[in-house]
């Protein structure tokens, strides 16, 4: 840490351990009982205005005090560029007449919701897909997870299915359709098939594309116009973000999962704290994580406002990729692995910002509000809006009113109606194992509707091989087919009325789970299972046998 501070000409004097200067980051940090937190900014001067996207002084901004990360500025000797900038530099095609950098995209993933209009753009302009083998399609958002017979009962969903089938056929793109056992949620399929690899640029018309950053690649969510850009040119117009290193030191306590780590980070830095940044997650807590845990953390980078998130590749990454269908094989794999490891940020790599969090102080975490930053540890009470900084008070009051909760009410013991285990955040095999360990031998509480939705057909198959489906079904959970399901409720899985859901998904926005007045409490899959069994928010640690996690 002290290395980092001195790199930017600051002493390790705690008086310089400042909070960020920008109001948009500062506000969420006020009025809270924070854990150990240190943020240093390299820039001596900060603008007085929060200008969101604008305030990061993109490289083309003549007013920028400037962090120029281009390779030209760091010739020879040890490469002090962080992973993000190494990968970016390799993929930068040039600068467009408009001033934006043009970034080459190595891998494109598409799904049925954000791609149909993009293909129409290509048809209107008479364009082809430039590298059809560099785009892979799957279906996930609208897929029913019970009755999957075609045509779907929902005509609109059927129309979208037909559209992606036709588009993939017409433009020569591989589609992992329902009859393909590789189908599943796009952010689960990519890593599972070995498509997601370190050092690539990967985009998808979905904000949770940040998931793939777990492998040490640049993984960006994009809009539909940009999907068309990538289809036609395998490139994008995009400004380079800054890079903030988030170091979580020490060890996690038993019962604290990857989901708790990322919810805690967002709680501390705020839902807009990451605007203008890519997040590098580093430190012993991430070093010790499995790839699936790293994916859970990177997945929710977007909830913290960051453009993307990543973890440096290491032996864990290489071991995960080896042997997967789309991974390099034989000697090519050895060369790939060597290159992947060379991309990792070195100990003296440079960053635009740095935050340190003590991993030992993270608790199982639960959201109480209507954005993912509104959370508390399970042993804490719901905060009083009066304790918030003025900037945040209105939002907190609105959240409490919508949720029907009172200030100072303990979150533990809050009744739930629905339990949802699944999503691109927490729909992987390890998530199901953790939830099953809690569910085993117990029964879902009377009146609670509980769903387990595997993230992919492969996850479902493996879980069934291990007998997890039986554990869940015997406990009273429904065992479903793969899809996004109740994370965003574009399929028939929805909350009804004012129901409260304990959910392993990523967003607790108003109306997110399908009912405009439905309410969502985000938590880890193990915590969801515990809530399902007790009918209320529960500290899962009370139900766990004392083994290390």
């Amino acid at each position, binding site marked *: 840490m002290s290395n980092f501070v001195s790199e930017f000409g600051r002493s390790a004097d705690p008086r310089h351990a400042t909070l960020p200067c920008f109001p948009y980051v500062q506000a969420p940090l006020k009025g809270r009982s924070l854990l150990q937190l240190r943020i240093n900014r390299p820039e001596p001067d900060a603008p007085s205005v929060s200008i969101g996207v604008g305030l990061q002084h993109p490289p083309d901004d003549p007013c920028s005090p400037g962090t120029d990360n281009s390779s030209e500025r760091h010739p020879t000797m040890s490469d002090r560029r962080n992973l993000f900038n190494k990968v970016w530099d390799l993929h930068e095609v040039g600068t467009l007449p408009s*001033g934006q950098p043009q970034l080459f995209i190595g891998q494109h993933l598409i799904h049925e919701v954000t791609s149909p209009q993009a293909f129409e753009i290509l048809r209107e302009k008479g364009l082809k897909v430039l590298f059809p083998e560099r785009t892979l399609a799957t279906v996930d958002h609208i897929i029913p997870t019970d009755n999957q017979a075609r045509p779907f009962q929902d005509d609109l969903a059927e129309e979208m299915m037909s559209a992606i089938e036709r588009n993939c056929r017409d433009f020569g793109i591989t589609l992992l359709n329902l009859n393909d056992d590789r189908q599943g949620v796009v952010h689960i399929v990519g890593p599972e098939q070995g498509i997601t690899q370190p050092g690539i640029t990967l985009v998808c018309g979905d904000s949770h594309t940040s998931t793939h950053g777990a492998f040490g690649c640049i993984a960006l969510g994009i809009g539909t116009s940009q999907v068309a850009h990538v289809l036609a040119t395998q490139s994008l117009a995009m400004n380079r973000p800054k890079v903030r290193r988030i170091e979580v030191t020490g060890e996690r306590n038993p019962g604290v999962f990857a989901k708790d780590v990322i919810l805690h980070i967002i709680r501390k830095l705020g839902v807009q704290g990451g605007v203008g940044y890519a997040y590098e997650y580093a430190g012993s807590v991430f070093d010790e994580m499995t790839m699936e845990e790293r994916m859970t953390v990177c997945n929710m980078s977007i909830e913290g406002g960051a453009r993307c998130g990543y973890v440096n590749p290491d032996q864990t990454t290489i071991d995960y990729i080896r042997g997967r269908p789309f991974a390099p094989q034989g000697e090519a794999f050895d060369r790939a692995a060597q290159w992947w490891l060379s991309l990792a940020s070195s100990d003296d790599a440079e960053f635009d910002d740095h935050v340190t969090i003590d991993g030992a102080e993270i608790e199982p975490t639960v959201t109480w509000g209507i954005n993912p930053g509104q959370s508390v540890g399970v042993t804490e009470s719901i905060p009083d809006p009066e304790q918030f900084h003025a900037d945040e008070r209105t939002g907190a009051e609105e959240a409490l009113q919508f949720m029907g909760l009172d200030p100072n009410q303990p979150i533990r013991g809050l009744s739930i109606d629905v339990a949802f285990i699944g999503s691109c955040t927490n729909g992987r095999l390890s998530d199901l194992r953790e939830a099953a360990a809690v569910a085993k031998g117990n029964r879902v509480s009377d009146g609670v509707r509980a769903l387990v939705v595997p993230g992919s057909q492969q996850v479902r198959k493996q879980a069934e091989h291990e007998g997890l489906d039986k554990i869940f079904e015997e406990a009273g959970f429904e065992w479903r087919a793969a899809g996004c399901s109740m994370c965003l409720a574009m399929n028939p899985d929805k909350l009804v009325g004012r129901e409260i859901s304990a959910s392993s998904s990523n967003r607790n926005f108003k109306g997110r789970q*399908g009912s405009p007045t439905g309410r969502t409490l985000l938590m880890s899959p193990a915590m969801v299972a515990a809530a399902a069994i007790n009918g209320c928010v529960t500290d899962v640690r009370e139900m766990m046998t004392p083994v290390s996690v």
Partner: protein
Amino acid sequence: MAEEIKQVNGSVVPLLLDDIDTDRIIPARYLRCVTFEGLGEHAFKDDREHDSEHPFDHPHYSSASILLTGRNFGCGSSREHAPQSLMRWGIQAIIGESFAEIFFGNCTSLGIPAVCAERAHLDQLHQAVKDNPSQELTLDLHNRQIHFGEISVPCEIPASAHSALTTGQWDFLSQLLSAQEDIQATAEKIPYMSNFSA
């Protein structure tokens, strides 16, 4: 070349709230479509159904073309359906305290300037708009200024987006397409594009 957007004039719809996510702008059930047509009527659908006073339904603001909002507008899902629904409702420019980045990028590629202003200035504009809803606002994008009656305040937008919009170069597809040779050259130097051949 796309249209040069140097200035936007129009009346304002005030929605000075923070952290408005794209699920609120357009709930996911309205994403079940294969075109963006008709999305305008679903803008803020759930909020409007639960708030009879919602500005998007208020007769004062029915012809507004500039949205005034708060911090971190457009956070959450990357769905382009969100700016598409606002655009199709009639919005041509957005003034806020800050914007989520994917949303901002989507706006720029649709030719919708999303500019940032200080909160104190937004509060001032918000009150003035409520006092005089029929008054037109001028967003002078070229000079990064907002004019509303007697009020003139500065705004900011990243230099590259400013340049793209004001010079009519926000149709990125045509620019990307004209770099075919550079795209191929970049692909050739990336190790994984040749499957790590020695």
